[in-house]
């Protein structure tokens, strides 16, 4: 029977190919949506994994997370520097570190922070070592700069009329191992350097000065107040003592000692004056709900496409059986059992759908992998495209539906009278 089915499919290869392609594309659509959404969830959750608690100024919680975890450029309000001082001194805190952004280099965000954060969120260096002086920088695994490279920070994005901070240059001294997070694309520098470049810190005259991505655009209006540029003192030793006169900060990453501490800290800084504390995981969960809605819409589209393809297949199958009634009648006349006739039609259809579903899963995986690659290249967040057991269940469901649907034309063939078929 298999031999007959295969010979038949070989003979009708063009039509078979079209059917396989139809099924494959309809399957791939759903598979790609599912895989992509899962990758986005997993990838973002893993990227936020090391970010237990983030404290920032009151404002959008989502923006605070997107800016600090995913390094998305945005205008964040600043909170007073004492918050960091208080957090570091808090017995419930294992470590706390400032996150200062606003500058970039060749499209890579430059993030001012401390050795505590780098040690706490990464797995170590693939090359070089930790920065030890103000003019030294470390790069994430996704930054295409060698050790020793010069980094000239640019304020604001180049495309938006940003300007370089003349005469301030960092030297790359270390490269971090991949973490699969947006920080893989970041240039990490001592926070004190960021403050010095923007004229903050020692001369602390502008607590309000923004590390604001869009500041360049506001340049004309507020130049007098905001732009008080300083330079980094490249050879100055690292100063990570934040117990006095800390400039304003957009965000502080906090590593609580225990889960209970995490909740207590969030409570304290959520209601505290001039601060807001968020669990990135919680904010992401809210985003996932939105993502899930989008996925649901796309899945309905995919289901619609699959239903259309299924209907088209049924039409083709029924017409095909009608066209071949003579052949089927002859098979019966020559002594093929009715069940064999049923089996041939059923198997032929099911085989085509199975090949299509298989190809569709491959195609969907490829598409999701491709999109994830694009996303990773852009954001640095690693997107794990992977199948789970539920996908096997989905494939099994497709095949079960196909098996049921193929039974209809097969039953038509089964019920067909050989005499009438041969007469016609």
């Amino acid at each position, binding site marked *: *029977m298999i*031999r*007959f089915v295969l*010979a*038949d499919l*070989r*003979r009708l290869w063009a039509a078979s190919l079209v059917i396989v392609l139809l099924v494959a594309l309809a399957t791939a659509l759903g598979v790609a949506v599912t895989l992509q959404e899962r990758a986005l969830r997993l990838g973002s959750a893993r990227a936020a994994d090391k970010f237990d608690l983030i404290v920032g100024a009151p404002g959008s919680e989502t923006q605070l997370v997107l800016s600090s975890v995913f390094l998305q450029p945005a205008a964040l309000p600043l909170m007073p520097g004492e918050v960091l001082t208080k957090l570091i001194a808090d017995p419930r805190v294992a470590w706390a570190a400032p996150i200062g952004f606003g500058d970039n280099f060749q499209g890579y965000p430059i993030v001012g922070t401390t050795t505590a954060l780098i040690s706490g969120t990464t797995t170590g260096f693939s090359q070089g070592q930790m920065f030890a002086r103000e003019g030294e920088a470390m790069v994430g695994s996704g930054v295409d700069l060698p050790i020793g490279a010069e980094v000239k920070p640019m304020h604001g994005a180049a495309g938006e009329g940003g300007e370089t901070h003349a005469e301030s240059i960092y030297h790359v001294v270390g490269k971090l191992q991949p973490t699969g997070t947006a920080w893989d694309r970041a240039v990490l520098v001592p926070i004190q350097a960021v403050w010095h470049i923007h004229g903050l810190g020692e001369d602390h005259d502008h607590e309000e000065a923004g590390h604001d991505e869009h500041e360049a655009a506001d340049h004309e209006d507020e130049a007098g107040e905001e732009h008080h540029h300083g330079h980094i003192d490249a050879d100055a030793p690292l100063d990570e003592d934040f117990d006095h006169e800390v400039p304003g900060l957009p965000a502080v990453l906090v590593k609580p000692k225990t889960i209970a501490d995490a909740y207590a800290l969030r409570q304290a800084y959520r209601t505290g004056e001039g601060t807001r504390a968020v669990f990135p995981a919680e904010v992401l969960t809210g985003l996932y709900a939105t993502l899930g809605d989008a996925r649901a819409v796309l899945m309905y589209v995919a289901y619609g496409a699959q239903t259309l393809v299924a209907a088209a297949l049924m039409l083709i199958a029924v017409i095909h059986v009608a066209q071949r009634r*003579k*052949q089927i009648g*002859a*098979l*019966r*006349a*020559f*002594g*093929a*059992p*009715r069940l*064999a*006739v049923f089996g*041939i039609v059923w198997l032929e259809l099911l085989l085509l759908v199975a090949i299509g579903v298989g190809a569709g899963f491959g195609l969907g995986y490829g598409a999701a992998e491709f999109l994830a690659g694009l996303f990773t290249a852009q954001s640095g967040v690693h997107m794990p495209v992977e199948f789970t057991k539920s996908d096997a269940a989905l494939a099994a469901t497709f095949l079960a539906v196909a098996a049921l649907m193929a039974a209809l034309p097969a039953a038509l063939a089964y019920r067909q009278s*050989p*005499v009438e078929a*041969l*007469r016609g």
Partner: protein
Amino acid sequence: MLPLALSDVAISFPGLAQPVLSIDHLEVPAGGRLAVTGASGSGKSTFVNLVSGLERPDTGAIRWDGTDITTLSESRRDLWRAQNVGLVMQDFHLFPGLAAIDNVLLPARLARAATAEVKSRAHELLSRVGLARPEQSVETMSRGEMQRVAVARALLRRPGVLIADEPTASLDAEAGAEVGQLLLELANQEGATLIVVSHDERLTERLDRRIRLADGHIVADTAMRASS
């Protein structure tokens, strides 16, 4: 080798007042060779369908060696036909894309009856009908060759009866004569009862007996000279 006995057989089609076939009594002895002739619409094809068990009459009994096939269910008749009847039809009904040998074996394979013995018999039959290349695809064959493949297929499972429905009508004279000769020879060698429905005088005159149908009735029944 099966004897055939029809009694009080009648079949009507919806919308037709007259029965398309009505045979009160007909017997063919085991190994007998019967020719059935008649104009188109006389009931010849219906006769083939009835005696091969493809169709069931409204009334009457069709006994092959004591088995009344009118009492069998459709599936049982399929099974009985597969085991006892070899069919050769005007249009060959070979399956494109399959080699000659696979066409011969197809019904047996579908019925899960293709044993090693059956397979070697298939090769043997192909050479007996004069086809030297069992792996040749049937689309590349002449019509005469195709009908020979069909004859080999009909004989594969050693049927007790060989029924041919206009086996030479779609062949040229020469090929038709060869196929007719093969049918007679092989039915004789295999010891199968032979029923041939045909317009072809040169074929029908070589059988033992000829009946002529008109309007569903037997209007002539002639014993021919024994030729074998």
